[in-house]
């Protein structure tokens, strides 16, 4: 920050707690005019809480905000942030794919549009001028669904920049918050996006660039601020800071190990092999897993690790690959959920609400669905026996609920997840695939779920656990594979499975970046 100039945005002492847990603790942040400011931190570091306070989604417990030197009272009412010169582009971009570029561009532009008559010709002309100004070759009449991912991201950014322009009357050029806009873009497109960002700052607009990717932050930002466990660890002038220094600020140094899983025992029995697996993001992955082993898969957003459980269970179509499980070879492009279940594979999906449980239906109906036609005769259902089976699963997995007949929607997240585990583990699977098994679950229930997973391994099953939570892997994984842009980048095993080692492997400079 150059002395004497008024920063575009100044946050002082911002704090926010959720149910006694400090998500953000006295955070300070200054963003200068015409600056690209990186915001870095792991999941749960307080990054998204900070962004959500700025966008008016959360009210802070304490703290102040100044924009262009003028104090702004918090919380900013939803929809008012643009009037203060703040605009947001979130990872999902907020575009309606079925609508045209022009319809998306003017959506929500209530301040300017005549609500009784939209002059489409004038709006299209205005859009063309706007796109020219930003060096964006885009036809206003095109459907957004026909645009490449980078064009969509650029459209969202141009729209945000256009919205804060009205604020220029107050004297400031505005500030854009770009929240993880890049994880699904190829490298050359990321550079196109960066060029657009630099053109925006050339007109005095400030940008907060939130990213997991240290290389991108190193490349495009002027300064960067690192958050960890709700605290601001420091702000760095990017050009004067070493990469390792930033990595250390993000990860921290942990002294105690949280490991709860025992070392892997060698067991007889064939290992499970996955060969040449390719899907939407992952390319040509080969991995193997021993009986009784918990294999963790992780990586940054968009690296593809979370795709693997779905490809192995036939829930999402694989492009190539095969799976050797207990002496049988399965061709993965032809795998179906039914074949996977029959082969002894269980998938516990991350989206509990949509893919894990039918929330309207009863616990019994949810738990016994995989038994019908398998362990239970399909001709006549004995409701008492089904309820007894369910009660047994509920007891074994400590599901707290009133009765097997109640709707699954009435259970807490932790109990729902224990029920999903019970639904699948009662089948005695040989390979269990977990995707974010403890998402949105409180600490106590987490521990119970870890214990069940470890028990399962002790009984000789193999477990693959895809997660973005490094602590979780440190606690339960025997071995961890770190993914980067669809490929396995690093492997950690035994006592090397620590959250800081995993984080370092994730943030390590990747080959694709180095080659650019």
């Amino acid at each position, binding site marked *: 920050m150059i002395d004497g100039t008024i920063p575009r945005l100044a946050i002082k002492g911002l704090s926010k707690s959720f149910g006694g847990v400090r998500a953000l603790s006295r955070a300070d942040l200054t963003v200068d005019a015409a600056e690209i400011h990186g915001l870095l931190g792991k999941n749960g570091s307080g990054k998204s809480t900070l962004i959500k306070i700025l966008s008016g989604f959360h009210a802070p417990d304490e703290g102040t905000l100044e924009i262009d030197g003028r104090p702004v009272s918090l919380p900013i009412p939803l929809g008012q942030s643009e009037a203060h010169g703040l605009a947001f582009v979130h990872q999902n971009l907020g575009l309606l794919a079925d609508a045209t570029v022009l319809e998306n561009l003017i959506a929500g532009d209530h301040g300017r549009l005549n609500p009784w008559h939209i002059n489409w010709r004038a709006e299209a002309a205005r859009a063309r001028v706007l796109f020219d100004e930003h060096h964006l070759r885009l036809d206003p009449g095109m459907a957004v669904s026909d645009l490449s991912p980078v064009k969509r991201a650029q459209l969202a950014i141009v729209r945000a920049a256009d919205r804060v322009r009205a604020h220029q009357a107050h004297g400031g050029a505005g500030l854009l918050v770009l929240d993880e806009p890049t994880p699904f873009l190829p490298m050359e497109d990321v550079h196109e996006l960066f060029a657009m960002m630099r053109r925006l700052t050339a007109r005095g607009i400030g940008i907060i660039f939130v990213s997991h990717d240290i290389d991108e932050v190193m490349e495009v930002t002027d300064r960067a601020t690192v958050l960890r466990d709700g605290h601001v660890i420091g702000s760095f002038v990017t050009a004067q800071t070493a990469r390792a220094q930033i990595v250390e600020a993000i990860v921290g140094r942990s002294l105690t190990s949280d490991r709860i899983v025992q070392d892997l025992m060698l067991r007889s029995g064939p290992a499970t092999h996955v060969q040449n697996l390719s899907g939407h993001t992952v390319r040509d992955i080969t991995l193997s897993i021993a009986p009784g082993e918990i294999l963790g898969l992780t990586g940054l957003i968009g690296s593809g690790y979370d795709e693997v459980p779905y490809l192995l269970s036939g*829930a999402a179509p694989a492009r190539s690959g095969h799976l050797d499980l207990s002496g049988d070879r399965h061709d993965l492009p032809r795998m179906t*959920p*039914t074949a996977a*279940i029959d082969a002894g594979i269980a998938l516990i999906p991350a989206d509990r609400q*949509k893919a894990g449980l*039918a929330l309207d*239906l009863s616990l019994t*109906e949810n738990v016994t669905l995989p038994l019908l*036609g398998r362990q239970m005769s*399909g001709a006549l259902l004995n409701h008492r026996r089904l309820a007894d089976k369910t009660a047994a699963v509920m007891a074994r997995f400590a599901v707290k609920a009133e009765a097997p007949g109640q709707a699954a929607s009435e259970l807490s997240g932790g109990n729902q997840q224990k029920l999903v585990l019970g639904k699948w583990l009662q089948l005695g699977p040989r390979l269990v695939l977990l995707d974010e098994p403890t998402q949105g679950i409180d600490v106590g229930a987490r521990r119970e779920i870890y214990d069940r997973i470890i028990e399962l391994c002790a009984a000789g099953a193999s477990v693959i656990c895809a997660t973005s939570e490094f602590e979780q892997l440190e606690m339960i994984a025997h071995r961890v594979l770190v993914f980067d842009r669809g490929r396995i980048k690093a492997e950690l095993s035994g006592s090397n499975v620590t959250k800081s080692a995993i984080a370092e492997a994730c943030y390590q400079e990747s080959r694709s970046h180095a080659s650019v």
Partner: protein
Amino acid sequence: MRLSDLAYQAERFGLVIVWIAVIAVFGALRPDTFLTWSNFSTIFGSEAVLVIVTLGLVIPLTAGDFDLSIAQTLTFTSMLTAIMSAKMGVALDVVIPVTLAAGALIGVINGTITLYFRVHSLIVTLGVGTFLHGVTLWISDSQTIGGVSPALMQYVIIQRFFGIPISFYYAIGLAALIWYGLAYTAFGQQLLFTGRGREVGRLTGVAVGRVRLISFVASGMMGAIAGLLYTGTTGSANPSSGTMLLLPAFAAAFLGATCIKPGRFNAWGSVVAVYFLVTGINGLSVLGFRTFVQDLFYGGALIVAVMVSQLISGRKERNL
């Protein structure tokens, strides 16, 4: 019994109680004409067709699909029956299987277009139904066709048990079959997950596409059975017979989902709903109201019943 159980039982049997109350009120007002066995046996017999159409809708609705073509399936198969029997002199033991096969074929067409081309079933069945109505008008030359084999009438309306035409027992038999299928078979559970948690079902190994196709075939065949009974009830087929049944059948299916097994489309709830609606309409017409009360009652009763049922269950969001 706890209060919540009591509320649940009230919800389950609320419509039955209201139905009895409606009978009591009309009975008190017109004991001689309304409250007679002959009046009730007429209601039970003549509305069997509506019961079967409603039951036919329950199957795809449970699987999360609409079958708007079911009423025109009825019209078309009714006309097919009349033409084969009266015009072509085909024997009943050929007419019946051909008619059922026609219904099944319509189901296959609905299901194939919905699943293969991934078009919403509402659009597909609207189109197929309208198309079928055109076919019906074409093959009948827009005329009512009479002279159907008396044997069909014999097996539908003339034979009676306890004074009620045999068609009523067909409807009850089908209701029992669907109740059993939904409540006691693995297929019923698969149907339910296909409608209420399609992704959960798919990941648990339910062949959701096949389940949906079967549900369309089942509703097509129910439409054909309703068509046979319609022709048997009147001894003739008219080219607009089903048109007036579609909305009452949907009203009854949704109304039925508020009772017996609240929150789910169910067979006995549908039967109760149909007979509640037609009892009300019959009573109003006995009191001398004219035909406009039909639609007032079908529509008004549906809206009032779903509002009351939502109030009882605490206005929680329901995804039928």
